[in-house]
């Protein structure tokens, strides 16, 4: 019997281990488009098995030291790109200060997959069905990319292109860190994902994050949508509609209508487009209500 028998086996490739980010960058620089980074592998390996991806070289960064961390310094939360979803799930800092991130990590795939799946991979893979992109869009995150020419910081709303599964990362760049502004006073956010079962992609998902000023008016609003378009969607009109006034039921419903209008779902096995658009509306209402509760000290 051959190894793997008649099951799905990836095409051939060369495997290389990078022990540092510099080594990974050098290997990418040398091999260009032929090479792909292997992070947690929980999306990439199934893709390779279906031969939907056929890189000739995989550069494994699981043995790079110093890319797994969650720390808040100088008003910024720094998450190392190789931080596992399970580490977000169990972090008291995340639970206490960034519950929207716990909402998100705890619904990524399933708990076994989360032991290896990484936050950086979830974002760099740029799958519109992945959960972190919407949350990062709501939070106004930035990502750090390291390449042969050095390091650059990219706002998340400039990171995803109009093409599905595409980012502005160059072939010789590695995503190394995610930076999220620490929550100002009177801030809160939430992520709601509607899924058929644990482990499935979202039928629809909505992340909402708000900050209130001392008068109780909304001074920041971020809304991101999961799996209702060909890319992660930032619902800009919905965000704008919330600014400069209190967050009440009327403004929540107006924003929810605008978020639904910003979605571009297609009909598939997870439901008809009309249903998904309506779920965006419903989930936006729920996410904004919970964001408000968290911003005002409730839960």
């Amino acid at each position: 019997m051959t190894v793997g028998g008649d099951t799905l086996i990836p095409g051939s490739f060369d495997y290389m281990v990078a022990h540092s980010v510099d080594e990974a960058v050098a290997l990418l620089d040398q091999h260009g488009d032929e090479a792909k980074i292997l992070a947690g592998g929980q999306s990439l390996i199934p893709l390779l098995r279906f031969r939907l991806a056929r890189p000739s070289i995989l550069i494994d960064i699981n043995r790079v030291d110093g890319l797994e961390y969650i720390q808040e310094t100088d008003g910024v939360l720094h998450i190392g790109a190789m931080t596992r979803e399970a580490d977000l799930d169990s972090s008291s800092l995340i639970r206490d200060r960034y519950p929207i991130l716990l909402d998100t990590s705890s619904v990524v795939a399933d708990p076994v997959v989360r032991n290896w799946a990484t936050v950086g991979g979830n974002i760099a893979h740029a799958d519109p069905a992945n959960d972190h992109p919407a949350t990062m869009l709501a939070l106004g995150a930035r990502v750090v990319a390291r390449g042969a020419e050095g390091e650059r910081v990219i706002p998340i709303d400039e990171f995803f292109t109009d093409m599905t599964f595409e980012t502005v990362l160059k072939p010789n760049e590695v995503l190394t860190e995610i930076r999220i502004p620490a929550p100002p006073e009177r801030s809160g956010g939430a992520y709601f994902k509607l899924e058929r079962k644990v482990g499935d992609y979202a039928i629809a998902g909505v992340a909402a994050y708000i900050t209130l000023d001392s008068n109780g008016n909304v001074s920041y609003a971020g809304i991101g949508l999961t799996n209702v378009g060909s890319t992660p969607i930032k619902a800009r009109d919905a965000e704008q509609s919330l600014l400069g006034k209190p967050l009440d039921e009327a403004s929540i419903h107006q924003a929810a209508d605008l978020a639904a209008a910003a979605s571009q779902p297609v009909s598939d096995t997870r439901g008809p487009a009309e249903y998904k658009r309506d779920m965006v509306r419903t989930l936006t209402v729920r996410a904004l209500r919970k964001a408000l509760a968290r911003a005002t000290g409730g839960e």
Partner: protein
Amino acid sequence: MSTHHIRTTINGTAYEGDVEARTLLVHWIRDVLRLTGTHIGCDTSSCGACTILVDGKATKSCAMFAVQADGREIMTVEGLEQNGNLHPLQEGFHQEHALQCGYCTPGMMMSGLALLQRNPNPTEQEIRAGISGNLCRCTGYVNIVKAIRYAADKMQASEQVPVSAGEGGE
């Protein structure tokens, strides 16, 4: 196509061999080492039948390459029984009738073990969350939850330390 020489410890025994880069860990374990207790269900990291512990972490062995396991400690379902004695989890699955066709059972027990190593006294809700990456099409899960609870009670009563692969826990 690169080939690599890897060394791992599986259930306390050292194994080494040459693997193609594309060889999945589950295929190496089953087809080369002939440890066939670990099952292959869906091939797409959805069902959890192939769950093993890698450095103490529950892992879907169909979503990891064998070469990635180089130098790591692995535990498979064959490592549960010790000196002819069933592990409390195995005894629990027997006592509570937690399997029908048995296909998901090795993965269920390894996810159960990872859960009990992290949380020796889980609630029903925590058990259900702990096995939510493992699919069973026969039982409706009720008896699987009871079996893991049985193991938790037995392990706590005897203050038996769960069998540990690697450093355990997270």
